[in-house]
């Protein structure tokens, strides 16, 4: 009833017709309730394994809980502590620094390679793309253990190569110096993810109609102009998506730093990420309530960024439908 009232109020006559046609097919309307059956397993599983643990974490964040005795409600204490916890902000700072070190070259390579593959005929394109993408698929833990061997002091492969080529006189203890260690993490992240970013950027570039470039070239635009005036603006949604994706992923980074430092975040705690801090607080120091508060505080930062992305998607969904 409400629907037809709405229709007569505002919608154009075409809409009204469509709805009356829909109602005419009585059989289909009867079947539509099956939709809920098809959605049920997903939402039941999400309620049990997703939403319930999330709310349970929220509850625990207001308690003091050591993993053995019953949680004791302590109100906002965990939150007032985390807001002023220098270790949290230090971990957040480290996480962002390591993300930037990895993300900057990652984007440069991704855009450069996407342009190379989109605007040139490259022989073996499929093989190149596959090889660049491969590191993204492989277990981060295995990759970290692998690089831990490569960078190890004094006889890891990197040191063997550097000393044998006389680039350095003495082996370098990479993972004991802050800039080298953070740089290595950034480099590993670059190595793992540039291929993935490249493929997402490429999908966006391929979608730009060639006729736009043709028209601009007729008007006398050069390659540089084409990129800044056509490619870059039209790629904005894709750029925003890969940027947010990378930032949100970067804020959650854990595997590589945990394996390379054995969970300690050494040297000088500069490799400690927020999620490592969260993990250690709960599973090393049995402070689950505080760890839950850290999780929510981190989520607060992530949600701010992610909401831009969700809004973008919803907007796009509305435009395309």
């Amino acid at each position: 009833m409400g629907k037809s009232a709405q229709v007569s109020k505002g919608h154009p006559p075409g809409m009204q017709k469509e709805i009356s046609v829909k109602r005419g097919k009585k059989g289909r309307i009867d079947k539509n309730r099956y939709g809920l059956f098809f959605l049920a397993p997903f939402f039941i599983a999400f309620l049990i394994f997703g939403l319930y643990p999330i709310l349970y974490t929220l509850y625990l964040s207001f308690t003091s809980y050591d993993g053995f005795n019953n949680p004791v409600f302590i109100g906002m204490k965990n939150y007032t502590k985390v807001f002023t916890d220098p270790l949290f902000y230090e971990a957040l700072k480290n996480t962002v620094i390591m993300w930037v070190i990895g993300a900057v070259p990652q984007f440069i390579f991704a855009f450069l390679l996407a342009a190379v593959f989109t605007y040139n005929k490259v022989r073996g394109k499929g093989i190149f793309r596959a090889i660049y993408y491969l590191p993204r698929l492989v277990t981060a833990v295995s990759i970290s253990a692998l690089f831990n061997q490569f960078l190890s002091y004094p006889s890891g492969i990197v040191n063997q190569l550097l000393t044998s080529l006389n680039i350095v006189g003495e082996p370098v203890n990479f993972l004991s110096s802050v800039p080298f260690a953070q740089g290595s993490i950034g480099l590993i992240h670059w190595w793992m993810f540039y291929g993935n970013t490249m493929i997402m950027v490429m999908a966006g570039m391929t979608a730009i109609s060639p006729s736009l470039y043709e028209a601009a070239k007729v008007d006398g635009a050069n390659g540089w102009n084409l990129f800044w005036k056509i490619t870059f603006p039209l790629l904005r949604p894709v750029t925003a998506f890969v940027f947010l994706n990378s930032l949100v992923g970067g804020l959650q980074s854990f595997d590589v730093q945990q394996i390379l430092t054995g969970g300690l975040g050494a040297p000088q705690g500069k490799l400690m990420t927020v999620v490592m801090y969260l993990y250690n607080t709960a599973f090393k120091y049995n402070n689950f309530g505080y760890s839950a508060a850290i999780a929510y505080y981190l989520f607060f930062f992530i949600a701010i960024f992610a909401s831009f992305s969700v809004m973008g998607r919803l907007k796009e969904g509305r435009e395309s439908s």
Partner: protein
Amino acid sequence: MRIKPVKKTVMYIFLIALAIISFFPFYVMIINATRSTGDILSGFSLIPGKSIADNFGEMQSRVDVLKAFRNSLVVALSSTALTCYFSAMTAYGLTAYDFKLKNTAFTAILVIMMIPPQLSVIGFFKFMKGMNLLNSFIPLILPSIASATTVFFIKQYAETALSRSIIESARIDGAGEFKIFNKMALPILAPAIFTMGINSFVTSWNNYLVPLILLSDTKKFTLPLVIRIFNADTQDPSVGAMYLCIAISIVPVMIVFFLFSRYIIDGIGAGGEKE
């Protein structure tokens, strides 16, 4: 845009150099898996050694990596099967029917995609501890029923691939709704399911944080957890055995990838375009 031969040469040199950088670590990993610890520490080589059997014996004597391999395989295959079937089911429900909560449900799925896994970890741990499911594979497998990203991707595909007239004609022939889904929709959605299935397998195979907090019994360890043990053993490291263990965790993924890379890469591309 045509470019000059010199530029073209520079371009290929760049592409090949980058391919070497991307693949070289894997190559060294495979080579070192066949060399003895002594050889590996004394120098660098591009030629395989003869110690793979020794490394294997050493590896198994420290940690049962084959058992971990089986565990990883059981978890990843079961998760993938659940993700594929139930995501297709959800996507089908969102495409083939019109009902009141449909748009709300789809918006919910988009929001769920954005929830970082860390948010639930602490509650999940306590929940599973309370259910006596620590050291069980169930908490690693059952949550795969609700994979929002997979639903999103398959739904995008279903919107163009599934036509309502086919569904309607099957109904006229008297087929039930679930039969239509199982016999007709699943084959039509197969390409998207396949792409997301590979992704789901790899994600589960690589999963680290959740097994790390739930599994403490070494007999239940998955591959990332045994690699962690090897990596942490700095007192008496067996580097050759460790390279072999890393290779065992990586090579299956590499094989799957090179067999199906086209589907995987097209999948990401298609997903990216929609964003």
